[in-house]
């Protein structure tokens, strides 16, 4: 239903061959939010800047293309934000979601800098919108990009271009020459062949490695085969690997990432935001043995949204099914793929290739455990179960009004946290604890400095913008001295 034959092809972008004699002040690897913020800030600091983006023009900007908002501290309500969000509150939130797995000094620095981002990013042409219908009750803490992440990128690219930043697409960096913490040159592969680029300083802003299933397997084992990757196939972590191999200090571990449960029918890569499902709280979630495995009503979505990826990853075959009835069908945002529908639970099980008797039993046991209460779709209510494990602590209603519905879900990896260690300047730290001479990192590639685990919506862009700007500034300063 979703595909149509031969999509019209976007315009080709012609580029001149690279000048082998040229030495840039700053080389930026990557083409997303972090890369563009770095490129713009380096250029504004007077440096000559080259951006190498592995993706084609249309796919430029990695996972940033899929984003919608960023989280910035602010002291009062604005046109786009419904109330104040102080630095302290931001810090408390971050401490809570990461359970303390964060570098306080860097995190506090990022939060302080995030205040200024609200105006800086607008000065670079990005526009925000007032929070509206689909904004997931984040209207106070998060600023939403008008038109989404790709619109945001279009604005940043336009600004970069106007400032004279040179951008090359279809330009994957395949090798870095680094000596004792000093970047010397990069080898770039383009359609016309490979060439060497020299620059006085390097900003690595090439994202995480979530599209590199082999790497994910090192932490997760074979089950990573069954993960869906929500964003760009270009984030394979090749630059991150090279940096680690050149003795840059690693931060975080390979299993830490943002993972949610998304529609199992989503494409392997790049399905983006629209494959999310926000109906877990209204039904029950069973694995392919027809067993429930976690309290579906623990907390309101989206707060608990980010735990379901891991929960489903721990189930057999990394698949689970959200089961609900006709009463809940219109309580949540419409989905991309329609739910699977049947007139009875047994029939639904058959469509899902589950054991009908087992599913019927799980549902009826759940139904029998539901206690009376007052259902409130928007707030944690007093509808709970008694006498079953796991309990469902809110929004527990019998699943008994046909037709019955199901969504199959799989773990969808958003982005990874393992990265390179940096300081406040966004300068890389080497394995021996020394500062790198001329190498900076921003965005997903260093997100683990702030996010040891967990996630708070919109923080990916905050990390990219704050450290991107700092990296650009630092790299330009180094290059011009």
């Amino acid at each position, binding site marked *: 239903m979703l595909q149509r034959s031969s999509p019209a092809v*976007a315009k080709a972008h012609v580029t001149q061959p690279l000048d082998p004699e040229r030495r840039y002040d700053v080389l930026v690897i990557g083409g997303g939010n972090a890369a563009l913020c770095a490129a713009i800030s380096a250029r504004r600091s007077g440096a000559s800047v080259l951006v190498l983006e592995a993706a084609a023009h249309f796919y430029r900007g990695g996972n940033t293309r899929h984003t919608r908002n960023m989280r910035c501290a602010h002291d009062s309500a604005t046109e786009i934000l419904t109330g104040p969000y102080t630095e302290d509150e931001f810090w408390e939130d971050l401490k809570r979601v990461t359970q303390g797995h964060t570098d306080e000094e860097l995190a506090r620095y990022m939060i302080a800098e995030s205040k200024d981002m609200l105006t800086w990013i607008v000065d670079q042409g990005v526009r925000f919108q007032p929070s*509206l219908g689909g904004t997931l009750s984040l209207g106070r803490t998060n600023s939403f990009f008008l038109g989404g992440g790709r619109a945001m990128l279009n604005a940043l690219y336009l600004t970069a271009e106007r400032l004279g930043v040179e951008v090359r697409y279809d330009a994957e960096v395949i090798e870095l020459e680094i000596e004792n913490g000093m970047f010397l040159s990069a080898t770039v592969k383009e359609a016309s062949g490979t060439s060497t680029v020299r620059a006085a300083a390097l900003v690595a802003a090439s994202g995480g490695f979530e599209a590199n299933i082999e790497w994910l397997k090192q932490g997760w084992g074979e089950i990573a085969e069954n993960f869906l990757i929500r964003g760009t196939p270009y984030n394979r972590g090749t630059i991150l690997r090279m940096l680690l191999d050149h003795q840059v200090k690693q931060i975080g571990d390979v299993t830490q990432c943002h993972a949610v449960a998304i529609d199992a029918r989503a494409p392997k890569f790049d399905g983006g935001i629209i494959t999310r499902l926000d109906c877990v709280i209204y039904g029950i979630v069973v694995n392919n043995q027809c067993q429930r495995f976690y309290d579906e009503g623990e907390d309101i979505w989206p707060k608990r949204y980010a735990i379901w990826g891991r929960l489903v990853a721990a189930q057999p075959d990394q698949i689970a099914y959200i089961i609900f009835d006709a009463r809940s069908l219109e309580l949540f945002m419409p989905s991309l793929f329609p739910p699977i529908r049947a007139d009875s639970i047994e029939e639904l099980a058959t469509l899902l290739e589950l054991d009908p008797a087992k599913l019927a039993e799980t549902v009826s046991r759940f139904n029998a455990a539901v206690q009376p209460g007052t259902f409130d779709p928007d707030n944690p209510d007093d509808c709970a179960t008694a006498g079953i494990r796991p309990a469902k602590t809110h929004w527990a209603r019998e699943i008994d009004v046909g037709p019955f519905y199901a969504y199959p879900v799989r773990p969808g990896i958003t982005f990874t946290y393992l990265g390179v260690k940096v300081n406040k300047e966004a300068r890389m730290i080497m394995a021996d604890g020394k500062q790198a001479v001329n190498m900076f990192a921003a965005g997903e590639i260093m997100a683990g400095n702030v996010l040891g685990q967990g996630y708070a919506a919109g923080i990916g862009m905050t990390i990219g913008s704050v450290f991107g700007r700092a990296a650009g500034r630092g790299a330009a300063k180094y290059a011009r001295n």
Partner: protein
Amino acid sequence: MHATSALTEADRLMTVCNSCRYCEGICAVFPAMEMRRAFSDGDLNYLANLCHSCGACYYDCQFSPPHEFNVNVPQVLAQVRSESYEAYAWPQFLSGSFQRNGLVISIVAALSVAAFVIGFVLFRDTSVLFGAHNGPGAFYKLMPHNEMAALFGAAFLYAIVAISMGVRNFWRDIGEPAGTLVQGSSLWQAIKDASTLRYLDGGGVGCMNEDEKPTDKRRLYHHFTFYGFMLCFASTSAATVYHYLGREAPYPWYDLPVVLGTLGGLGLIVGPIGLLREKFRRDPVLQDGKKYGMDVAFLAMLFMTSLTGMALLLLRATPAMGLTLALHIGIVFALFITMPYGKFVHGFYRFVALVRYAKERREL
């Protein structure tokens, strides 16, 4: 099931967009979409006519081609929109004129001009046709005012009736009660939105036309065209009033009908040229290729109306006046009678769609 493949595709896209909603701040289409969970033909026709074709949601979309989700809202809504003109046309047997619309309009225009030339030749002496006329009533030596008024009045009336019937068909199809069209606040909101082309601005930065850079000037050119047209309309109305007050055309250059007509005429020259230029530059992926002729024909007719009107102003004291007049009123006549069967109708459907949107917003 939907009536056409364009509607089926529009349904698919609205389902994708409704689960995304990133574009909700850009224009009216997305908030209107969010008020629905499923999309009937009528809903889709409503959304398609709300769309101003600013192009922003194509370049801002992470799923536009070559992404496998192949989301191209501007193009598909343009297709649905032009199909809807055809479906609502009154009387229905003339709906075919939307197919090969460029050709149809050219033929009607040519026939109309020819008819006036032949009429002048048959019914007036050639000496009158090629003579130089001066002073009040000069035009009416070629065609008496009452004949002209009756002919154009009838053509105009016909256009109004046919367009109204089309709007009625649209209104029924989208399932909106008649009462909405007389709701003062909704009407006023729609007048403001339409007269400023609020949704032809790419959500604030400007429209996109050739690529993702918001360099499009269609909004400006559309203002020239629309207000030019309105000024010409005001000029004709003023002249009609003058006539019945006993002051006959042609009027001196400083008189109200000529001043309005000249300003309007300039708008109708600059505007359509600008719009045509933007049209030729437009990224083909945004366009409904099949309807190129319709858009071009409409702009060309407006341009010709103005050009011949200006020529008439310049040549009115020379022997070329007779033929120029035939040319001008031939074009205007053709413009009138083809109004219900060409791009002209877009303004009406879009306006009433905005009225409904204003109501829906208020009731939210």
